[in-house]
């Protein structure tokens, strides 16, 4: 067992964002390799809200980042398998990832980590060499989430199995953040937190809901046009193969990997947005839909999740009551699969 040298990390400063409405205060900062954004009302709560989100992000990064050498997850990986007593926070994050894997039929799988690493996503995305001539090694399917056992704070990790919580971690972060903000503000007003586009809201929403833009990458030209929707509760998350891309041996790779093949998912959807009661549910469902391909339509319909699927040709398919008219509210269905599943398996208490 090796000693861990604590790393001093300094959070990026929050920057006020002018949205055109004075009745809400919005700020954002870089976090978790992407952008964290907070919107609150009343505006006077912004300082308290940002501080609460800071605490959540620092804790989540310390627990679940596979890119930080001093994170709890990295420590587990360095130990090379075994039975570990882990923190409540990591237990929740792992429990949610395992529950999401069960819920999605293995379309999201936290044991996909080694496949991602073999494809070249072995460090912070900003540090990845964008283009290399040598092709990626032969694909390595994920060992399988069912090999990982979690019973309360006890985690059994088989030797050689590493975890990537990317399909759910930002969702968990947004869920925790809105909860922490509402607690810090004494349940007054309302809050929206976005981590890299995975958005959760809590408290009392603005009249008609939080206005949220659904879009692909901003530099993307052509159809579909961004859509404005209203979120009155719950969460919305988007997964896409149009970002976090790199090239190996003339092949473009991306970060959403099919656990069955160990290769980047190559289904018919390039971007999927899903609304659900919690951001972890929405996050997992959106990623699973990219991996599931055409089967995502029946799965999302069966689960009753409002979803917007964008095909590679830009064609949009809406499911589960996702609004066709801009500015309409998304009918979010109550109930969480991943937190309930995590609780059943003892991963969240």
């Amino acid at each position, binding site marked *: 067992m090796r000693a861990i040298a604590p790393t001093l990390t300094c959070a*990026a400063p929050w920057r006020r964002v002018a*949205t*055109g409405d004075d*009745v809400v205060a919005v700020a954002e900062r*870089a*976090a*978790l*390799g*992407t*952008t964290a954004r907070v919107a609150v009302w009343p505006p006077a709560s912004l300082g308290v809200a940002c501080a609460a989100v800071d605490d959540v992000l620092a804790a*989540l990064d310390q627990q*679940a980042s*596979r*890119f*930080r050498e001093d994170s709890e997850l990295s420590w587990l990986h360095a130990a090379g398998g075994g039975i570990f007593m882990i923190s*409540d926070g990591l237990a929740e994050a792992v429990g949610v990832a395992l529950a999401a894997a069960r819920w999605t039929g293995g379309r999201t799988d936290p044991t996909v980590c080694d496949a991602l690493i073999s494809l070249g996503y072995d460090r*912070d*995305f900003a540090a990845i060499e964008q283009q290399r001539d040598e092709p990626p090694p032969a694909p390595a399917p994920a060992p399988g989430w069912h090999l990982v056992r979690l019973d309360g704070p006890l985690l059994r990790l088989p030797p050689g199995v590493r975890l990537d919580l990317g399909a759910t*971690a930002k969702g968990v972060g947004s*869920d*925790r953040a809105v*909860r*922490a903000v*509402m607690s*810090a503000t004494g349940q007054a*007003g309302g809050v*929206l937190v976005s981590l*890299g*586009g*995975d958005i*959760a809201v*809590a*408290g*009392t*929403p603005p*009249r*008609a809901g*939080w*206005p*949220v833009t*659904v*879009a692909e*990458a*901003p530099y993307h030209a052509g159809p579909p046009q961004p859509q*404005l929707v209203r979120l009155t*509760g719950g969460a919305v998350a*988007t997964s*896409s193969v*149009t*970002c976090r891309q790199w090239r190996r041996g003339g092949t473009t790779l991306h*970060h959403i990997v099919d656990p069955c093949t160990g290769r980047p998912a190559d289904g018919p959807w390039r971007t999927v947005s899903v609304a659900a009661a919690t951001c972890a549910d929405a996050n997992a469902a959106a990623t699973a839909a990219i991996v599931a391909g055409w089967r995502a339509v029946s799965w999302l319909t069966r689960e009753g999740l409002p979803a917007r699927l964008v095909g590679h040709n830009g064609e949009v398919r809406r499911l589960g009551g996702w609004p066709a008219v801009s500015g309409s*509210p998304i*009918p979010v269905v*109550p*109930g969480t699969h991943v*937190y*309930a599943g995590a*609780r059943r398996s003892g991963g*969240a*208490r």
Partner: protein
Amino acid sequence: MNTDRGQNEGRVPLRELGDADPPGRTRGRRDSFRKARRMSNWTAAALMVGTGAAAVALAHQSFPAAAPAAGAAGQTGGTATPAGRTGANPQGTSGPSVTHSVATTTASGVTVTTTTRTVNGKTVVTQVRHAPASADN
């Protein structure tokens, strides 16, 4: 004796075993037995219903079927659904009226800053893409 009389005043003497009921009292007693039995049946039924309802209520509190219970704060764990997170909140409560988009759900990892300004009466939306930050997840 005066004392004995005083003590026995108002008391009904116990009947000996085998004594017949006085006429007119048999029916009254039978009625009161019936009434008591009916009352106890109703009491038992009410108790059973009450116990069942309490058990169901407790079971629901212990094992919420869908969304976790609201309220618990936690940045390190816990599964409580945040306040107002069990699906869509009722619209038009006491929130302010917000017209402009406050956030964008988009491909994860794309760092976007959206700024909205009003210039000469027109709304100008600027979106700037930033390089990813130094941490990742």
